């Protein structure tokens, strides 16, 4: 079945687990790069379905972020709430200095798992919408 949402992530775990089932736009990169990719989608008319700062783990701690978007109809159909929210998220993310440029694998794996869990908490709502 075709859904009208897509998932943008830099978390490979999300891609591995859900890439076959849903449209998962996975690209490795930093937390901030992911937010910028999301912003580009928003500028092209996509609407945010989940909060880009989901979770209480700070943007300078977790390297992973997954965001749900409703596909847009092009830049002439901007969702201004989404524009504002993603901008605020980027401002918030930027004020934290990245703490762990190099992170032990076991901690990376834990962050990936938490991000997956946050992402999964929105899945029922997204698929029912």
């Amino acid at each position, binding site marked *: 079945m075709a859904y009208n949402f897509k998932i943008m992530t830099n978390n490979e775990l999300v891609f591995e687990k859900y890439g076959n089932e849903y449209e998962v736009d996975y690209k490795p990169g930093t937390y901030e790069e992911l937010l910028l990719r999301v912003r580009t989608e928003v500028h092209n008319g996509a609407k945010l*379905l989940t909060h880009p700062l989901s*979770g*209480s*783990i700070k943007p300078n701690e977790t390297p992973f972020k997954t965001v749900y978007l409703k596909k847009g109809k092009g830049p002439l159909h901007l969702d201004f709430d989404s524009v504002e929210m993603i901008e605020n998220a980027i401002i918030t993310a930027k004020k934290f200095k990245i703490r762990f440029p190099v992170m032990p694998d076991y901690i990376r794996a834990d962050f990936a798992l938490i991000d997956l869990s*946050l992402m999964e908490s929105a899945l029922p709502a997204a698929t029912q919408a």
Partner: protein
Amino acid sequence: MKLELGYIKISDIQLSNESKVENGVLYVNPEDIINLIKEDENIATVAVDVARPGESVRITPVKDVIEPRVKVEGPGSIFPGVIGKVNRVGEGRTHVLKGAAVVTTGRIVGFQEGIIDMSGEGAKYTPFSQTMNLVVTCEPVDGLRPHEHEKAIRFAGLKTAVFLGELGRNVEPDEVETFETLNVKEGIEKYPNLPRVAYVQMLQSQGLMHDTYVYGVDAKRTLSTIIMPTEVMDGAILSGNCVSSCDKNTTYHHLNNPVIADLFKAHGKTLNFAGMIITNENVYLADKERSSDWAAKLCQYLGVDGAIVSQEGFGNPDTDLIMNAKKIETVGVKTVIITDEYAGRDGKSQSLADADPLANAVVTGGNANMVIHLPKMDKVIGHINFVDTIAGGFDGSLHEDGTIEAELQIITGATNELGFNKLSAR
């Protein structure tokens, strides 16, 4: 609905060969605790320690803090739907081991967080430097997944607190305080001239390590609803939230919710504490819209004049907070909101991730990015090597000499958004 809280003042905790409460001292036989927790086959080892105010002790990473309570009269038991049966609580009489707390620690994921220092600079910022703490450190069996591990430790803490609370069942309290919530009609009749105020509590509800439970139900799967403040005192709300230690609400905070306490203090004098609404903080934006719509609708339906809204956690809950404030104001109910700030180390950054001019009455728990210096402690309970990887710490924050340079957000409960502390910012 009427509840009496009987406070048994605990001045010390002693490890002993018999568990009991006597002359204000809580004696704990560690074997009792170890056997109790090891009923769960997911837990491999348990260590029991005591940390007292003023001692050179650091506890980290802190998962939860819980106050021992026991239901001595009235229906239900503490932590209904989780430890106790799902029966409704909030009536009758409950005994509290006041001044004592159970602190759980243990590595669930690699970056676990939360520090309680019992003395020194850090002690100023956490309320749990002032409680007698029974610290329970649990290690899981190999290969236990984080979801199960979190649950195992959550239950270890709750069971320990219930076990200790039970020791106070037949002890005569030093002080008894009574709390009563009238129904809407009675309240209006009794206090016709006082403004009616509701409390809207936002609960963290986003996924693994970000959850809160209400009568055992995961809050992310709830709609905003009405709860009795006295139910909360009996453990109807408990924490499964292990992140953002400075502004998460531990179970201790829920049991001792200061907004409830201070609204009760003003009740019948300057206002009529008309009721309490709980609403969640989900990841999904439509959920946020729905939950805040419902919170505002319930305020409107209760016909209150004002609502105090408290937040939990960092980042996206700012959006829930602002939605709540905006919508509640829009239905003609005046709001005061309680939050904390992430204004950067220099205090110059935008404090909140969202804002609205209608949110014109804000109480803040302070800037969580403020840098603090913690001295070395003689004894560390838990896992100090995780300090570098807990929120607010940063690379190199744990110095060779055992001192720590970190942001305030490293400290458990430091910028609490229920307004538990005196810390603020301007």
